[in-house]
């Protein structure tokens, strides 16, 4: 299975996801009532095993995540991942001033909504630009070890993962996160074909 993207294809995908992140930042800034920087500085295509190793090193053993499934011209699980010890910080920064109660009680719900906004903006933008027909499932939040978060339905060994690095800057704090896109079975060649078809129209 081909997992290679040309530099131009990588640039194109990074830009498309940055456009999506710009939309998400606009929505989230209205929630937080403050400016938010949400950017994808880089993107890598790696194997499942490499993704687990990279995420464990950068996000830590325990992470919090929000997952949505894309079904259509290619099938994929999109997972937003933050270090577990940052999840409450994100919720506090986003809604802290406006929420009178105990934030830990609504941490999962708030993270799910933040994930929903980010993932939908990213994949909505991708689909609008490259075309196609997809269903996006409802978001679900989970906390646990990276290896278990990525292993959504059974063993993913050998699958291809597109890893987006995210800078989330709010109130002078930078929180680094990731979006891992697990492309199922033969979805990677279909995904690359969709990107190439779009680029050929320019």
């Amino acid at each position, binding site marked *: 299975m081909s997992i290679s993207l040309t530099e*131009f294809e990588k*640039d*194109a995908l*990074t*830009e*498309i996801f*940055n*456009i*999506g*992140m*710009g*939309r998400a*930042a*606009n929505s989230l*800034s209205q929630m937080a009532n*403050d*400016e*938010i*920087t949400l*950017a994808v*500085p880089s993107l890598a295509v790696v194997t499942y095993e490499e993704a687990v190793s990279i995420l464990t090193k950068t996000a830590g053993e325990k992470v919090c995540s929000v997952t949505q499934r894309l079904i259509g011209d290619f099938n994929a699980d999109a997972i937003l991942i933050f270090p577990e010890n940052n999840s409450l910080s994100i919720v506090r920064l986003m809604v802290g001033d406006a929420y009178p109660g105990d934030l830990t009680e609504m941490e999962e719900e708030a993270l799910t909504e933040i994930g929903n906004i980010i993932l939908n903006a990213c994949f909505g*933008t991708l689909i*609008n*630009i490259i075309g196609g027909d997809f269903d996006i499932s409802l978001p679900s939040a989970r906390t646990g070890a990276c290896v278990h978060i990525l292993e959504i339905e059974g063993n993913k060994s050998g699958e291809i993962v597109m890893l987006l690095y995210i800078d989330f800057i709010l109130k002078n704090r930078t929180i680094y996160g990731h979006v891992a896109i697990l492309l199922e079975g033969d979805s990677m060649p279909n995904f690359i074909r969709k990107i190439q078809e779009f*680029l050929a129209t*320019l």
Partner: protein
Amino acid sequence: MKVLIVDDSALSRMMIKSLILEKLPECETIEAASGDEALGIDIEQQPDLITIDINMPGMNSFDAAVQLHEKWPSAKMAVITANIQNSVRQKIQSLGIMFLAVVEKPVTEERMNKIIKAL
């Protein structure tokens, strides 16, 4: 007519160029991948229109817009950006430059028309 496209993404530069040439086939385009690169272009190149992205690595894009305006005061300018937050729009307005338009990415035919009609 000469257009300077300042954007770090090759994809966005290509999309902007393609839409400009569709509307203005005689137009000449120059590309720069950063504010620094744009400011390094020979002053004799004198663009009539400059499109600039807001989130680019390296030099701050707001500073780049101001310096490009100082370098080529007669060039009309437009912002094409994915960062459409109110705070960003306010910063753009506070630069003291009359922008033709602030357009959200991805640039589409309709959005490009907004810039071209304002020329």
